[in-house]
């Protein structure tokens, strides 16, 4: 048993308008799945379905992991009026042993006491990505993780994802920016 997600014949419709239909896939440990599709084709909906937020109209979806799922969505889930340190505490990451390493990689270690509202969009995205880098999950679900990131950070992201794949974790992601690592693709 090394499958993480099994999906069979997933369909979703909203107000009788069909979004997608008959999608089946299986995600094994140590594999990545790239969801591809046009705007409005339902990529985000499919990813949220894997997270358990949205229920499919038809079809079965099983997630076979007893750990929490790590989800990076369009919304950053960080508080604008708090500083970086408090936000890390809210995300339960302030005691993580790798925290200092990634803070310095992202050049954030000197702005711990700055309010999020004063940071740029890209920096905010980086803080949201710390949730990914310091994850305690088997299954990583990334919805457009590269929006607003510079090339350097994208490389760091790709390197990290490769390492996680080698560790036997599963990744499902959607991205319009090409990420250079080994992944299957699924078009919807």
């Amino acid at each position, binding site marked *: 048993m090394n499958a993480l997600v099994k999906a069979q014949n997933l369909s979703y419709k909203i107000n009788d308008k069909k979004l997608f239909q008959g999608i089946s896939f299986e995600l094994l440990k140590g594999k990545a799945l790239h969801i591809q599709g046009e705007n409005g084709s339902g990529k985000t909906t499919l990813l*949220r379905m894997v*997270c*358990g*937020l*949205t*229920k499919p109209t038809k079809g079965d979806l099983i997630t076979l992991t007893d750990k*929490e*799922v790590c*989800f990076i*969505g*369009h*919304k*950053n*889930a*960080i*508080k*604008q*009026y*708090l500083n970086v340190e*408090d936000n890390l*505490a*809210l995300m*339960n990451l302030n005691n993580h042993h790798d925290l200092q390493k990634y803070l310095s990689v992202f050049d954030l270690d000197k702005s711990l006491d700055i309010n999020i509202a004063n940071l740029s969009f890209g920096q905010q995205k980086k803080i949201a990505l710390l949730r990914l880098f310091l994850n305690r999950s088997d299954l990583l679900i990334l919805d457009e993780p590269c929006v607003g990131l510079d090339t350097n950070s994208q490389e760091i992201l790709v390197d990290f994802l490769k390492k996680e794949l080698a560790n036997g974790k599963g990744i499902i992601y959607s991205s319009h920016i090409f990420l250079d690592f080994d992944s299957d693709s699924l078009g919807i």
Partner: protein
Amino acid sequence: MQVIKFEFLKLLKKSRGWLGPILVFILIMIAYPLTVEVSDVELKQSFFSILWIAALLVIMLATEDIFLEDFNDGTLEQYAILQKNLSFIIGSKVFVYWLVIGVPISIIGTIFCVGTTSQTAFGYQILPVLLVSTYIFMNVFSFGNALSLTKGSVLGTLVTLPLLLPILIILGKVVVAINFDLNYSGFLLLLLGILSIIIMIIPMIISYIIRAHLE
């Protein structure tokens, strides 16, 4: 425990969220004597109705964005994914809001009550009633705001305010009971009973609603 700590952190750093409602409450309590001819009798007659309505309106104001902010920045969806027990988080969120806003309002209301009626014994009886009723208001308005999460708070209030009118009627009865030395503790027990049902059920309903919103 950690959830409660985090909610405290979030609410306390957002001073307009908690200080605003408390100041509005104080202002209402100061403003209403100006509208009556200053004679003690008239003040005492209308004091309690102003007190209940002020508490109701201020709690309504305070719960306005209790879920909206977390919904907009994606915190709620992270909660929904990470923790299975969403209703517990919601229950503690409402509890923290009550602790930070409802309790001060109750204490301030009691002070005003003692000041107006100049009877300290009234204060002892009014304080528990205020504490319980603000917690009930908090829960019900949170429910309303969860219903109309992205539609503005007017709709939610419109829809849930009718549910609170029976509570207001009981509060009116409480004042009569205190004034005439009648069965006061019976009403307090009734309010406590209503509260205990509400804090069991409302967080579950809200978490169901929020999951539906996230869908």
